[in-house]
């Protein structure tokens, strides 16, 4: 797992040592999960900017239903309540992280310095 941890690259001061330094990205994902849990409990259910303009101007109904459903509306089908949204959110966080991580792996350049 240590290859996931970036070599410190701060221009001036050395970053703090310890677990949070090496596995800071785990803390980052934990923060994302907390945001998803808070969203499941406290996010406003009101229409967002575009949706409310669509309702106000009467073109909301031209929006089509999706042709297929996987985890529609950030829920796990068959599971009710906030727990459904929490699990869907965490699944989404995992999918997005892995997708982007792999994309980065494929695209990023190795450093010129072999010590990295």
């Amino acid at each position, binding site marked *: 797992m240590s290859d*996931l*941890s*970036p070599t*410190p*690259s*701060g*221009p001036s*001061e050395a970053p703090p040592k310890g677990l949070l330094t090496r596995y*800071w*990205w785990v803390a*980052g*994902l934990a*923060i*994302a*999960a907390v*945001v998803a849990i808070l*969203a*499941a409990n*406290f*996010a*406003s*259910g*009101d*229409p*967002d*900017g*575009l*949706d*409310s*303009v669509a*309702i106000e*101007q*009467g*073109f909301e109904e*031209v*929006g*089509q*239903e*999706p042709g297929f459903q996987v*985890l529609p*509306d*950030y*829920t796990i089908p068959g599971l009710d*309540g906030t727990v459904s*949204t929490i699990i869907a*959110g965490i699944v*989404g966080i995992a*999918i*997005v*992280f892995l*997708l*982007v*991580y792999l*994309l*980065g*792996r494929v*695209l*990023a*350049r190795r450093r010129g310095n072999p010590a*990295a």
Partner: protein
Amino acid sequence: MFASIAGVAAEATRLGPPQLHAPDGFLSVPIAAVMWLITIVVTAYAVKRTNETFDERAIPLMGVTAAFIFAAQMFNFQVVGGTSGHLLGGVLAAVLLGPWAGTLVMVAVVAVQGLVFQDGGLVVMGANIFNMGIIGTLGGYAIYRSLCGVLGGEQRARIPAAGVAAWLSVFLAAGAMALELGLSGTTDLVVALTAMLSIHALIGIGEALITMAALAFIGVTRPDLFGLRDARARAAA
């Protein structure tokens, strides 16, 4: 008027994050196709530029940024009576990762939202990616860098410059969406522009606050992460 109030009331009873992004049908097929074309060209160029310049040490930050933006987009915050808004995140991604890797993050987030969570239609996904991602990562980043230049360097101006760029990116995204709706014949262009710009002028404040808070948090806890964006440029210098 009553219909709209009833509609808003019906929407308000829904729990959790609502479906947020434009569904298919909001844009005409020609407009959606043009937006897909622009998005594909920009994304292909972003892949090329990322491949040329992106340092592997920034990969975990790229993944975490994408995960955070995905989660934060679920968190609709109340704006004014009956309307909510949510983060777009393009400026945040670009400040941390640069405009090209930032663009790829936004493409991934919006694509997963559409494909897995049925948030945003597939035909209009090109437009959704352009409006919510590319405007912020390319346009917002250009504004951010200009402001940093004016305000005495990125080190000093990072947070205020990112805040202003974030607000503007939402404003521009709303304008682009309104323009696409108007050109599609979905609704009157001027009416759509007025409504979209006025409500998103408020939603943009949320975008600015979240973007500034996230950057301030990184600045306090892990300021070295700011160096990853230009890591290779510095190594080569």
